[in-house]
């Protein structure tokens, strides 16, 4: 697949162009340029590793949004088998931005719910750019109930810029559909693993993201507001998105440090978009481990731990404590 280079990947793109020309040259002139070719190939790998080992928050946001990045249905093909899609919320419609159904992961039957984006305009219109309407959240809940009834684990693949800000979404109460999912997922009597595979856009992400384990790909982001939205409000202009991205601490590494997610899933060198198979293998490994840790827990323990996990998130200061000490809650 031809990968469109991001701005900070320009040095790599330049080297790749050089390499291509050299190869062409070598073929035409029948000169042996093998050594030169190998040198550039090494240089590409080296530059790739160098750039990707030191990414800032805004660069990661751009990678998370890359249209060549594997999307949920790519992972369903590569990391799972036998995906059986199930449609509809039994109330209003079938949200194509949030496909879901049965799938098998390393021999284990699961229910998968996911955000799905499109790679081209046509597909994006069908998938609403990965922004779900209330029907999506309600379909997800219906499938989670099914999982609960038949004791199947739930796997949630998150990749959305946010829940859809549309007239119909408001008329059908998108806020309520997310809130109800949060309440019901707290009590759902089966294990839930959520993975932010690309964009974790605010309430739209959390609406299928309350889980026993929350994993995040290395270059995914998860944020209360888009960096552009935050910049528009706090910096008065969207062009300050890079600063906002940094301030919001929205990268997987930051969120792991803050104890708001459980695990960072590594990506292949140069990002998931450069090697779908490797990314899928890493996802599969992480999911298999997470499920094996969860499936033997007695239900009461699972639910208690899930409640406590979210219960302790946040930091406040209480006057009773010494002024210098910032206590974590409770």
């Amino acid at each position, binding site marked *: 697949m031809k990968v469109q280079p991001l701005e900070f990947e320009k040095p790599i793109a330049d080297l790749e162009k050089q390499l291509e020309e050299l190869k062409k040259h070598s073929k035409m002139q029948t000169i042996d340029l093998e050594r030169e070719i190998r040198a550039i190939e090494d240089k590409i790998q080296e530059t790739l590793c160098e750039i990707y080992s030191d990414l800032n928050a805004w660069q990661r946001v751009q990678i998370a949004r890359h249209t060549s990045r594997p999307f949920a249905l790519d992972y369903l093909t590569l990391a799972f088998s036998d995906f059986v899609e199930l449609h509809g919320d039994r109330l209003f419609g079938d949200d194509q931005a949030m496909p879901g159904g049965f799938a098998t992961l390393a021999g284990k039957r699961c229910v998968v719910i996911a955000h799905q984006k499109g790679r081209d305009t046509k597909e994006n219109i069908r998938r609403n750019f990965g922004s779900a309407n209330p029907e999506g959240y309600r379909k997800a809940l219906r499938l989670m109930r099914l999982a609960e009834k038949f004791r199947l684990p739930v796997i949630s693949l998150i990749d959305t810029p946010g829940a859809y800000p549309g007239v119909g979404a408001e008329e059908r109460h998108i806020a309520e559909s997310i809130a109800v999912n949060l309440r019901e997922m707290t009590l759902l009597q089966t294990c839930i693993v959520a993975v932010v595979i690309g964009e974790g856009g605010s309430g739209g992400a959390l609406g299928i993201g309350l889980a026993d384990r929350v994993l995040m790909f290395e270059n995914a982001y998860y944020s209360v507001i888009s960096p552009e939205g935050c910049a528009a409000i706090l910096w008065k202009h969207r062009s300050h998105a890079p600063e906002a991205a940094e301030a919001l601490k929205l990268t997987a590494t930051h*969120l792991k440090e803050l104890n708001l997610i459980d695990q960072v899933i590594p990506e292949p060198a140069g990002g998931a978009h450069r090697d779908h198979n490797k990314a899928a293998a890493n996802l599969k490994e992480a999911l298999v481990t997470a499920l094996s840790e969860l499936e033997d827990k007695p239900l009461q323990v699972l639910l208690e731990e899930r409640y406590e996990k979210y219960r302790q998130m946040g930091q406040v200061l209480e006057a009773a404590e010494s002024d210098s000490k910032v206590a974590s809650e409770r």
Partner: protein
Amino acid sequence: MAVFPKPSLKLRTDKKREIPEGLWQKCPDCGEVIHNLELVQNLKVCPKCDYHFTLSARERISSLVEESSFEEFDGDMSSVDILNFKGVASYSERLKSYQERTGMLDAVITGFGQIEQHRVAVAAMDFNFLAATMGSVVGEKITRLIERGTSDRRPVIIVAASGGARMYEGMFSLMQMAKTSGALARHSETKLAYISVLTHPTTAGVMASFASLGDLIIAEPKCMIGFAGPRVIRETTHQDLPPAFQTAEFLRDHGLIDKIVHRKALRSTLTTLLSYLSVNC
């Protein structure tokens, strides 16, 4: 998370400034100039057109609960600049200026109290404090209130108003949605009632969590309620918004709101409703 733009709020403060001494206020809806004393006696509702001015959290609590019965919780809890948020203004500075301006430590007051014969757990949010955005303090105080309500077997009443998430707290802010909704799940499991009262404006992350989860959802007249802000919706969809879009009345007609209740009838309405919902209390 989308936050509503502030023009209506600005408009209100501008109007206030036109009138000296702060003794009089001009109704932003009908233009009537009202003496502050009259306004307070009328629960800050315009006597001419019924426009509902913003109530502070203290004013709200005293309008609903027997004054002597109110036992406040966690009144000393304040926010922490967890992320060391570096923006145009620092979070700590913003907090300090709002604390001075409002006399509140953060955007919500919680406690136990009595509404007529009903022993309730009650919270009121204060839109004057950083647009009543939800950060760790709002999330924690509301969660503790719900948990205390559950263990003391009390119905919960939350009077909501919010511009959404507290951006300065990043993902800690988003996670308060999960935390508060989780506490309500457990409260509801034990067959206790929760009444959500929506006031102007209730939006975004608060609307997408506890504010939408009432056994009953009631709203003050004409208040704005929604997930995304109207500007964001217009920009995203390039669509004209229907008349009265995202008002309490619009949402009642679209099936979300059980009842629109005038502020002066709120206490008596809650009393009646609670009597149907207090089998276990």
